[in-house]
């Protein structure tokens, strides 16, 4: 077994009396899609925030490529190789689609300390940005303002921006939400191919997508991982049925 | 340097602090409840002082002058809230800054138009003039002592209002969750007008009280306003308790710094230079205090919201 690309150890975070993640240890191996599922409010986004640096865990640690990144800032974690998408779009709404993707290219490339040449006329940046947009199917929208995009297109742009970073691991928070049946299928196909570039930690409510994509699935309920396994194992697991699918049925 | 001097200066600092509190309480309340940054709060202070000076001049009664200050500032506050401020609650901070900056221009020039550019004077009432002897044989002006008492009484009253009354519950609810109080059936726009008028009245009262020991003139509100900003930044914007502690800290630092820093500097430099650098540093001291608090806690001592 190879070393995991990304690993969390005993992540714990509480908001007052509420324990949002309770001793969560998961890992992400090269080439896999590891899905995290769980009911609303289970702590999935909270977990992602701790991995990516938006929230400080009360205890526990995060390691990327064997290197402890627990004390890194969000920016440093991104530079170290985490590519994140948000459940609720975090995009520059007044800017164009291309500008948002170029921002990613700036972060991935030479950084923002360039003051003379226009970013949108810098080929190194635009090439990278346009390639990412093309991959998610947003090329035609490149000059549109993000504010005028549909909800689904914003999700695609979120993914495109993370692509510009060429990360070591993708962390995606519900990339299918709001895509519609057709869009979900396209995105599923896309993520399927993406795993060979970098593994994906995928939080998703779309169960068809999860069962189609995931090499492994972890079930998070009330902040605790109650089961981890292959799709068929999770489907068959009694604990999961009781705690999670049981509720949903 | 005698201990009498020290105590006297501490009392001066307290007096300054409680007056700052009257200003800062309104500001912080208005920010806490309505999310509004109100630069025109200094104008309400000025309006209180002018109303008091005008009424005292006409009737000779200091008490009536204080009533006039409270009423004039509260009415001006309520009108401004209904005509202008109301449109700004959901606006960007920048718009709030600009609109209330515009109000300062209008109020200041309007007052100059009505009363002229010369300062007015408001006399300390006879009953409160002259010194009293405190335990330990310290002579201290009765009027300033009265100011301290009034300031503390207002602070207590405000605390009771907020902790113990229906309106207080609504105000606190408004600080935590604006939608909630609407859902509870409280008439928000009335509540906002009321809070604004209350803050204005406190500012007006401060203007009138301080007007009797300084001169009453156009532009008197803004230096106090800026100090009140420092106070609520130190205390944490939105927190009345923070405003109280911040006000006392600023009042004491400003007063004691002005007196003692030059003295301290004299210990290691010649007296002229010490006077100069001491007083320069003293005028900067409260800002240094603010800087230190913010390095320690970027949202102030009792602040939560950025």
């Amino acid at each position, binding site marked *: 077994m190879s070393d995991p690309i990304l690993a969390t150890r005993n992540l714990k975070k509480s908001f007052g009396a509420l324990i949002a993640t309770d001793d969560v240890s998961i890992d992400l191996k090269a080439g896999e899609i590891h899905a995290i599922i769980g009911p609303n409010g289970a702590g999935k986004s909270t977990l992602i925030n701790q991995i*990516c640096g938006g929230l400080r865990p009360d205890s526990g640690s995060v390691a990327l490529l064997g290197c402890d990144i627990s004390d890194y*800032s*969000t*920016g*440093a974690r*991104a530079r170290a190789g985490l590519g994140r998408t*948000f459940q609720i779009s*975090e995009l*520059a*709404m007044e*800017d164009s689609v291309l*500008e*948002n993707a*170029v*921002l*990613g290219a*700036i*972060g*991935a490339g030479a*950084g*923002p300390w360039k*003051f*003379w*040449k226009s*970013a*949108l006329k810098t080929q190194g940046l635009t090439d990278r940005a346009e390639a990412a947009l093309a991959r998610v199917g947003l090329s035609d929208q490149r000059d549109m303002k993000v504010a005028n995009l549909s909800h689904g297109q914003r999700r695609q742009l979120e993914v495109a921006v993370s692509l510009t*970073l060429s990360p070591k691991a993708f962390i995606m928070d519900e990339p299918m939400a709001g895509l519609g049946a057709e869009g979900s299928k396209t995105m599923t196909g896309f993520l399927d191919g993406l795993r060979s570039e970098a593994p994906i930690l995928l939080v998703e409510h779309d169960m068809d997508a999860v069962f189609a994509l995931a090499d492994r699935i972890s079930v998070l309920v009330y902040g605790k991982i109650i089961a981890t396994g292959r799709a068929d194992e999770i489907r068959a697991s009694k604990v999961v049925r009781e705690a999670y699918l049981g509720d949903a049925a | 340097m005698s201990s009498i001097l020290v105590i006297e200066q501490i009392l001066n600092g307290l007096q300054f602090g409680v007056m700052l509190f009257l200003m800062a309480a309104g500001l912080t309340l208005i920010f806490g409840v309505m999310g509004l*940054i109100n630069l025109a709060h200094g104008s309400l202070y000025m309006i209180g002082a002018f109303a008091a000076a005008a009424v005292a001049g006409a009737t000779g009664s200091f008490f009536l002058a204080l009533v006039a200050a409270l009423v004039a500032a509260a009415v001006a506050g309520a009108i401004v809230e209904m005509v*202008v401020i109301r449109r700004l609650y959901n*606006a*960007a901070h*920048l*718009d709030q*800054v*600009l*609109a209330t*900056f*515009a*109000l300062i*221009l*209008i109020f*200041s*020039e*309007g007052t*100059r*138009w009505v009363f002229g550019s010369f300062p007015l004077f408001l006399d300390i009432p006879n009953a409160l003039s002259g010194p009293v002897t405190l335990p330990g044989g310290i002579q201290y002006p009765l009027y300033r002592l009265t100011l301290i008492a009034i300031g503390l009484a207002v602070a207590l009253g405000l605390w009771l209002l907020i902790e113990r009354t229906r309106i207080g519950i609504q105000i606190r609810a408004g600080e935590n969750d604006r939608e909630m109080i609407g859902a509870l059936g409280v008439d928000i726009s009335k509540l906002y007008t009321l809070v604004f008028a209350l803050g204005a009245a406190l500012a007006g009262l401060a203007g009138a009280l301080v007007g009797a020991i300084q001169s009453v003139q156009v532009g008197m509100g803004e230096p106090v306003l800026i100090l009140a*900003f*420092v106070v609520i930044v130190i205390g944490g*914007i939105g927190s009345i308790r923070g405003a109280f502690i911040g006000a006392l800290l600023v009042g004491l630092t400003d007063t004691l710094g002005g007196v003692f820093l030059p003295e301290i500097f004299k210990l290691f430099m010649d007296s002229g230079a010490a006077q*100069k650098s001491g007083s*320069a540093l003293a*005028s*900067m001291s409260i*800002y240094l205090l603010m*800087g230190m608090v*913010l*390095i320690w806690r*970027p*949202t102030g001592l009792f602040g939560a919201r*950025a």
Partner: protein
Amino acid sequence: MRVKEKHVNALVIIGLIALPLFALISDEPFTITLATRAVILALAAVGLNIILGMGGLVSFGHALFFGIGGYTMGILAYHAQTYTTLDLGLFATGGTEFMPVIWVVAMVVSAVLAYLIGLLVLRTSGVYFIMITLAFAQMFYYFAISWAQYGGEDGLSIYVRNDFPGLNTLVPIQFFCICFVILCLVLFLKARLQNSPFGLALNAMRQTATRVETVGLNPMKLKLLAFVISGAITGLAGALFADLNRFVSPTMFSWQLSGELIVLIIIGGVGRLMGPVIGACIFVALEHFLSGLTEFWHIYLGLILLGIVLFARGGVIGLLTGKEGAHV
């Protein structure tokens, strides 16, 4: 009527050249001085607009840098004119009356101060930022008042305007040209900056700091550099302003001035390259004409301002072009 922003911009620049030339021909030096004043205030506001329009941070204390620029000029020129030495601890200098040197020193001092102050104030945001920048400017205001060596409350007069090689700076039109060229140069650099990777990142940071962090950038560093550039430009404007008046005083640090600089930007329109320039022209014109009509012209200025905030959110360019434009 809707016009293109580009055309409005061109018109303003042409107007700013034509007016002083016209005044020169009809021999009205005061008009040239007014135009110079507008150009310098515009420069100060262009500086402020980098942190305010691009960075979305409402600095209510930019008079600080304006004053620092002014006092840098005042102190250097004072020592040069009185043949006294300025002892700076590490080294001593006789001051200078040479404009380019004064400008560089003013910008460097402002930039260093902006860096130090920025480290502290940029930790905060929103209302805290507004109040703290205000307080810092106020701190320098009081410091200037108590700084008796350089005039204290009365300020410091510089009897002769400083020198620029090849020009007679005391001739109004020549000094105007200096200021105008500097403004155009800074506007050009600002336009480059706006579209550069740095500008794009700063612009995105205003909208969502989280996104900027997530692509590996550091919002604090972006803000800090924006604040430093912003302070340096406003400092340069301060040095020119002091030279225009041949006088510096603590009022250059005053909060009214900080407020007016914001007002200039809003009149013209936030987030637009020429917003501050148009704002400054309108402001100086209003100041001139209204104060000729009534002693209480600030009332009308206040009413106009209220009207703009409540009803014309894109500023004057917005009214003309029908677009609100970027807003903070």
